């Protein structure tokens, strides 16, 4: 039986990264979908950048910011004695950044698809802004958000470049499934490579099929 540790680590990293990305993406998506402000297009472009940037370049930026001598990394180390470099938490950070744009774009489209008339109706019926968001906006955007979340999870599972730059490839500690496949092929261990590739492929296909179903149902429901 091949060692499936990288797979469990991948699932843990992807789950944490998606959860974090969800919070940020929903916040920024709601802001950019509902408010018109100076620099909105620029903000959107910056938040979408990880989608088009080479993962290694992205990893380099993360090192510049979060490395032990980085802008935030130095502060983190000085105050809490913590460094994200070469840890699974660092891998979470990398996976979160690469998967964020997928969630952000889906969430923004989902929020823009919710008619503001429903929100206005809710306000007149007695809701404050927080209640409008949780009772109207969020439920009506739920399918789009879920679809974006699944895409982001799939992307987080498959990240290689950025994770390698930030967390390295330490067996049993930061080695994700994508890295384990690379190592297995390099070492000629095709049993492990085939097993991991098969599991990852099936997982990705299932996620994409479910995402498409959600998106289609969302269109039909409108």
């Amino acid at each position, binding site marked *: 039986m091949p060692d499936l540790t990288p797979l469990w680590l991948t699932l843990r990293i992807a789950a944490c990264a998606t959860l974090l990305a969800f919070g940020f993406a929903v916040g920024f998506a709601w802001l950019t979908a509902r408010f018109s402000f100076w620099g909105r297009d620029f903000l959107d472009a910056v938040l979408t950048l990880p989608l088009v940037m080479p993962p290694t370049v992205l990893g380099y930026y993360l090192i510049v910011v979060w490395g032990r001598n980085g802008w935030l990394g130095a502060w983190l180390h000085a105050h809490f004695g913590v460094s994200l470099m070469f840890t699974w938490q660092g891998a979470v950070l990398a996976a979160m950044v690469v998967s964020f744009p997928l969630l952000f774009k889906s969430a923004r489209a989902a929020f823009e698809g919710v*008619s503001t*008339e*429903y929100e*206005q*109706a*809710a*306000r*007149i*019926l*007695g*809701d*404050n802004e927080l209640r409008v968001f949780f*009772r*109207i906006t969020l*439920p*009506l955007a739920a399918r789009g958000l879920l679809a974006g979340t699944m895409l982001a999870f799939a992307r987080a599972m498959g990240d290689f470049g950025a994770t390698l730059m930030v967390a390295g490839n330490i067996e049993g500690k930061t080695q994700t499934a994508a890295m384990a496949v690379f190592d297995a092929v390099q070492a000629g261990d095709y049993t492990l490579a085939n097993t991991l590739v098969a599991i990852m492929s099936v997982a990705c296909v299932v996620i994409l099929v479910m995402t498409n179903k959600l998106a289609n149902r969302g269109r039909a*429901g409108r």
Partner: protein
Amino acid sequence: MRLEVDIRKTLQSGDRRFALDAAFSSQDDLTVVFGASGSGKSLTIQAIAGLVTPEQGRIAVGGEVLFDADQGVNLPARKRGVGYLFQDYALFPHLTVRDNIGYPLKKAWPFSLLPDDQQEVTEIMESFEISHLGASYPAELSGGQKQRVALARAMIKKPSILLLDEPFSALDSMLRHRMRMELLEIRQRFGVPLVVITHDPADVEVFGDTLVVFANGRVEEVSSRKKLAVPEDEDGWRTKVCWRAQWKKENLAAQRLVPASGI
């Protein structure tokens, strides 16, 4: 019920600019705000409801000041106590008819109805003859059913005034007449003043105790049934107002401000 509106607001989109300068008052329980599309009538009732904030002016309903720029008063929409019927009803698509109607009563997490509120929803559904639709979703309803549900939802909190934005435009002509009568009946039953926005002269005939005519962001004319020379002459008044509304519409159509087909 006295409605006082005196507001100014400017909208800018690219190089297009629209200036609203609306001032009128109505003592009647049936007020029609009449005008072509883009004349500022919808913006005005949105300001009354608290959905848009004027730059200057004052809005008061029944003596209660909802907005006063000079005094710094601007009640949020949720505290204005007005009912609002949107043009396409704005029924929440993810909630059943029953949940839509009970929506304003559910105030605390997990937003479930208390037994008293359940009873209230049941009673209002019965009075609007939509009890059988409780488990349906808005997408499954006809135009007339949607309107009844939206009215029931707007009325359940007993608003001080009910604002209706072109309430019959989505209905066919047969249903339109029936719903006009139902709306009058609702007004009687709940004793709530109505402000109806329309560009249909037929609505003026039915609801226009006070007629406010909008054009190009300004109130062009305010007519009251009570102030006419022969108030007892119901038919004469209606003919006059209807004729006037029709004339306005044709006049505006001639200026290509509204489609003539809509007359």
